[in-house]
């Protein structure tokens, strides 16, 4: 198969360079220059592991050796050809974010005090690094952007995806901050009073929380550091973001759908979210916020009203600066915010279109270059519960679309928030129409009917996990679950689809640590310093099981082989060169503008 002729190559690079306002030779030079793995900082070169204990049981982190690709042949069923590395060609290179959990820690609509009710039960309601999520997002976007060219093939990133749980507690600020970080817009992660932190980490009576000014709390006893000035630094300094180079796409997570990813949002809670009172203690939260949760006339109304009756006192509530910007967004606003974001890096809507707004349909499909079609699913339950399922109408739509993709010889990847271990939610509304909810076994069986599906990218459990779903008779697809930006190890990943030109495909998964020092230096309140501190605190979060979330070596940097679903020689080298030149034009344009 031949590639582009020299004349066609020059014409192509000239057209693409003109489209992104590059000097004529810049793109041609970039295409000719190979990228080496050593040029791209990923966990192939170096990663982060626990270091010595600093105080109490509090451990530092330190750099550790990189992890090379582990070959997995679960779906191939035989040893792969030895010569494939010399002949492989990249078809699509994707960045994968999930579970960014951007937090406005000063919002009254948060449920932190529930940690004081039962720390093991409500672990996700408060983390010691809640004030530092935008800093982590900035450092993670930096890592993804540094990996804009594949460490394996040098191919430019085709697209990035976000598989849900972007906004932790439904605050409009959280939604805007996450979009801004990906778009390269500077954010000052504050709400309420300018430059002043008003929240549970500054209130002594909130004994369940970490107090960096004076850690005379359960966290301090464990050895969490004393860091005066941390909270005001976190909410007062602007956090820049380099932004993504490639177009990025988004799907819903349960935290983008329900409060704390679990509970329905009543109208009373809206007033509470934008008001001037915030609960420091959980009985007060029961009186105030849960009344809003119970406003939907469901079974919760009866239970929470009972709780309210029993807890009539208003103690445990603090006055704070009200802020209408803390309003809780609804389902339509989530999509509209994506449509309203800047056109670069795009695409407009990030998967959602005006048709989604009109129809209320919260799922979409999009082509990631000429060879791959992505399907952005909404697996979230709209009623209650953290785990998910596929509604029947979306299931039927997906099967129809996969049939079309098969006819068009497109490789298909599925994107969703929930993974196959967490698709068992059965909750339906109290009244009104319902439809069947499809669970994991039925979903996987249906997807296996379509050999073109090669991967399912998701998140939700905050654990690096890779599972092979085998088709009877051979082949199947790979399910790839990434860790989160909130819990240790605070890692995300890239996935590259490569044609080995021997009747097999390989999916290369490469894990990224965010771009901040492994070892936090006490008192470093720079943006990368605070990102580093966040990872260190997450590694010491006693309400979590941090080490489990790393997954195994077999869940991180891997080469995942599978039989080609159709004759890939129908894709010419010239088509691949054109596709890669288009993606690389964005990269070169970015590099020309970016400060050295």
């Amino acid at each position: 198969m031949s590639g582009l002729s020299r004349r066609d190559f020059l014409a192509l690079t000239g057209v693409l360079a003109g489209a992104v306002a590059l000097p004529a030779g810049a793109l041609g030079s970039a295409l000719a220059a190979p990228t080496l793995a050593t040029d791209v900082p990923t966990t192939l070169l170096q990663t982060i592991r626990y270091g010595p204990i600093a105080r109490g049981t509090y451990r530092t982190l330190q750099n550790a050796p990189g992890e090379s690709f582990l070959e997995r042949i679960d779906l191939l069923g035989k040893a792969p050809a030895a010569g494939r590395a010399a002949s492989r060609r990249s078809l699509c290179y994707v960045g994968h974010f999930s579970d960014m959990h951007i937090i406005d820690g000063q919002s009254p609509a948060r449920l932190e005090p529930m940690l004081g009710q039962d720390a093991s039960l409500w672990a996700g309601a408060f983390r010691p690094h809640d004030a530092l999520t935008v800093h982590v997002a900035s450092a993670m976007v930096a890592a993804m952007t540094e990996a804009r060219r594949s460490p394996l093939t040098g191919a430019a990133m085709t697209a990035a995806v976000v598989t849900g749980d972007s906004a932790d507690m439904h605050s409009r600020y959280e939604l805007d901050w996450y979009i801004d970080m990906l778009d390269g817009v500077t954010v000052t992660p504050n709400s309420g009073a300018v430059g002043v932190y008003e929240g549970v980490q500054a209130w002594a009576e909130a004994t369940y929380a970490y107090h960096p000014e004076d850690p005379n709390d359960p966290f301090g006893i464990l050895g969490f550091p004393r860091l005066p000035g941390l909270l005001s630094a976190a909410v007062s300094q602007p956090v820049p973001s380099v932004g993504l180079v490639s177009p990025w796409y988004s799907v819903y997570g349960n935290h983008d759908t329900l409060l704390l990813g679990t509970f329905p949002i009543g109208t009373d809670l809206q007033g509470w979210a934008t008001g001037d009172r915030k609960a420091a203690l959980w009985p007060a939260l029961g009186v105030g916020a849960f009344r809003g949760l119970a406003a939907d006339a469901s079974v919760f109304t009866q239970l929470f009203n009972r709780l309210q009756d029993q807890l009539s006192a208003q103690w445990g509530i603090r006055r704070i600066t009200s802020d209408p910007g803390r309003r809780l967004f609804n389902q339509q606003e989530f999509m509209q915010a994506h449509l309203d974001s800047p056109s670069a890096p795009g695409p407009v809507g990030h998967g959602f279109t005006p048709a989604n707004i009109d129809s209320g349909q919260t799922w979409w499909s999009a082509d990631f270059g000429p060879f791959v079609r992505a399907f952005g699913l909404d697996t979230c339950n709209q009623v209650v519960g953290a785990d998910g399922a596929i509604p029947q109408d979306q299931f039927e739509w997906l099967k129809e679309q996969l049939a079309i993709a098969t006819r068009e010889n497109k490789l298909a990847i599925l994107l969703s928030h929930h993974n196959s271990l967490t698709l068992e939610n059965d909750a339906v509304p109290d009244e009104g129409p319902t439809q069947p909810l499809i669970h994991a076994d039925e979903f996987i069986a249906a997807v296996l009917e379509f050999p073109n599906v090669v991967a399912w990218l998701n998140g939700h459990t905050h654990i690096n996990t890779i599972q092979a779903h085998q088709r009877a008779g051979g082949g199947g697809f790979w399910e790839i679950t990434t860790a989160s930006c909130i819990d240790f190890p605070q890692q995300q990943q890239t996935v590259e689809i490569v044609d080995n030109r021997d009747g097999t495909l390989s999916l290369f998964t490469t894990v990224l640590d965010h771009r901040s020092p492994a070892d936090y230096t006490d008192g470093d309140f720079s943006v990368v310093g605070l990102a580093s501190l966040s990872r260190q605190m997450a590694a010491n979060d006693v309400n979590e099981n941090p080490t489990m979330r790393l997954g195994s070596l077999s869940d991180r940097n891997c080469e995942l082989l599978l039989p080609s679903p159709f004759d890939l020689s129908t894709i010419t080298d010239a088509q691949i060169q054109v596709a890669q030149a288009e993606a690389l034009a964005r990269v070169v344009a970015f590099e020309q503008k970016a400060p050295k």
Partner: protein
Amino acid sequence: MSARLRRFGAILAVGVMAVTSLSGCGRLMSQVGALTAVGGDRVAAVGAAADDILIRERVQVMQWPQCSEAKKAVSCTGAALDGVPITVESDGSSPLTMTITVGTRELFRGEVQPILNEAAGQKP
């Protein structure tokens, strides 16, 4: 989301059962059933620790163990390169333990958490 809501679900269940015993409403019960923790933690922990043991013991793997959970117990099945079955069993007790068998050979029997901690670089 990682909050463990099982106990909360149980508390709600008591209240809801009182309500539904009168109304007999299955829809409400579907909501209570949804108020469980994010799934998958136990399966993921056993699966990751088992894989790390297989790597440490240099087992040539064709199919890495696929795990499922039933009533807290986790069981996983896979295959070595020569086709010999790999099995992992964990009864879900606390502390979490597991037994890994390759063919007829017991490869590992012990606690899961120390394996995960060691893989993350924690030294006693």
